[in-house]
């Protein structure tokens, strides 16, 4: 049971981070190869606030998220103001996650250096994590469906035209970056308080790749697609544990296939809809009705 619970927690934590990244990369079109950096900042900040300053658990996690936001502004404002886009911004983020990892590894006094921090109480219960994930995903969905989200999409699809009809691209991009950093930070905090330890390798470059993979595989301009992909990317390696060595090969293969056949991702520009269930139900009902009529007549 504990094993199942831990998988659920990982799926949720990934889900939070991925929904943040989906806003940034999927909707606003800013590539981030280093989103785990925000998870690291949020996670470490939450632990330090809790252990060293005695801040209550949930407040520490939320404050960790806000500290990630502050870091994202320090990083993003100069980069976005100078119109770094696409690959260039991706490289900035790659640099960021590396800097965070190396910095943490070398700060021994509070952060524990390369060994990290151990003995963190397990305060993120499964139900709490599920609840927080549901709330955060719900908020993200509302944001994306609102005019703010539409402005993000406009900036992604045709920045010069968006600018020409009054959308401020810098503010739109920075807002997306800040929100996604907050999501990353909170995800990091929740993760740390479940894993009970944190080390620089908890949120290294590989974690960033997982997040980006979920968004790209799940689809551009979609929230449900990346969320589903995030779940699959956590659960699948567990099921295929005996193929662990081949995990990265599968990743690579999946990427190539998706890019070849579905360049916008599995659910690009669409959401997973359950309307077909209703339609199927009506069809079956109608079918049964017809059969009854026929047998009744016969």
């Amino acid at each position, binding site marked *: 049971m504990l094993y199942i619970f831990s998988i659920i927690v990982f799926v949720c934590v990934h889900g939070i981070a991925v929904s943040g990244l989906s806003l940034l990369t999927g909707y606003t079109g800013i590539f981030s190869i280093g989103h785990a950096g925000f998870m690291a900042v949020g996670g470490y900040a939450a632990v330090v606030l809790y252990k060293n300053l005695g801040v209550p658990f949930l407040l520490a996690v939320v404050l960790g998220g806000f500290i990630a936001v502050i870091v994202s502004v320090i990083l993003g404002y100069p980069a976005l103001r100078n119109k770094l886009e696409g690959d260039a911004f991706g490289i900035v983020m790659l640099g960021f996650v590396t800097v965070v990892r190396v910095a943490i590894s070398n700060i021994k006094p509070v952060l524990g250096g390369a060994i990290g921090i151990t003995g963190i109480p397990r305060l993120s219960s499964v139900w709490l994590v599920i609840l927080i994930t549901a709330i955060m995903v*719900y*908020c*993200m969905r*509302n*944001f994306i*469906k*609102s*005019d*703010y*989200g*539409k*402005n993000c*999409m*406009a900036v992604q*699809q*045709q920045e*010069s*035209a*968006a*600018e*020409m*009809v*009054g*959308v*401020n*691209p810098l503010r739109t991009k920075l*807002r997306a970056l800040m*929100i996604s950093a907050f999501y990353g930070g909170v995800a990091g905090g929740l993760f740390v308080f479940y894993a009970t330890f944190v080390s620089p390798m908890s949120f290294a470059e590989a974690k960033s790749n997982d997040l980006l993979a979920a968004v790209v595989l799940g689809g551009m*301009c979609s929230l449900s697609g990346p969320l589903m992909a995030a779940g699959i990317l956590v659960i699948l390696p567990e099921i295929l544990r005996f193929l662990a060595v081949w995990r990265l090969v599968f990743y690579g293969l999946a990427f190539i296939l998706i890019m070849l056949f579905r360049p916008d991702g599995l659910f690009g*520009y669409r959401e997973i809809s359950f309307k077909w269930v209703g339609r199927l139900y009506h069809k079956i009902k109608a079918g049964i009705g017809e059969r009854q009529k026929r047998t009744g007549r016969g």
Partner: protein
Amino acid sequence: MDGKTALLDIDHMTIAFGGLKAVNDVSIQINKSEFVGLIGPNGAGKTTFFNSITGNVSPTGGGIVFDGHSLTKKRPDQISRLGISRTFQNIRIFPKMSVLDNVTIPMHSAPSYSMWAAMLGLSKVTRQQKETEKRALEFLSDLGLEAYKDREAGTLAYGLQRRLEIARALAASPKLLLLDEPAAGMNNDECNELAELLRRIYKNYDLTVILIEHHIEFVLKLCDRIYVLNLGQLLAEGTPEEIQSNPEVVRAYLGSRRTKQ
């Protein structure tokens, strides 16, 4: 023209890209409710001229004053909110968004509610969205695009995409509308239809229009006044009749008509 009534006053503007002067010491005054044409051979600096008005290119010399505001230090989105809207030479709609969403973007470029309200999905957000959608539908039906409102904009036919761009420009509620070759790639019938449409929206929305176009008949038919640019310099200015009979213009530009038809 006296300077007081001019809606757009461009004063000795120069735009240089390195050593190349794309626009060289051009002064233009445009009054409210005028329909002005801007013509000139390829590379005359017409689009650069538009880009400077909308803030995409900053002039290296001279000034632009619109409705009492200097535009030279402003960002494109600020200029848009002052009331200048444009279409592009190469169509720039939002291809993956619905036709309706394309038109609502200018109306909520700066949403009236906060980010937090949006995240919590408060009722005022949906109310606001319903309202903008209703207004957007009015623009769409005015331009005959209502039937396509749910279509993905990128899948529309070329002529309809042009129209959508005009609808989007109108949705930003401009005082001054800049049209960059709206009739490019259209046949005669389509041109006539477009001219009709432009005349109608010009009247209905009480606009001031600057039109860049290569179809000379189109420009002559629509515009009250025409400016001719050549190699970045102002060659002539006048009514359609004056332009047609100006020997310099005929030599630089209209002379090529001989080969047509």
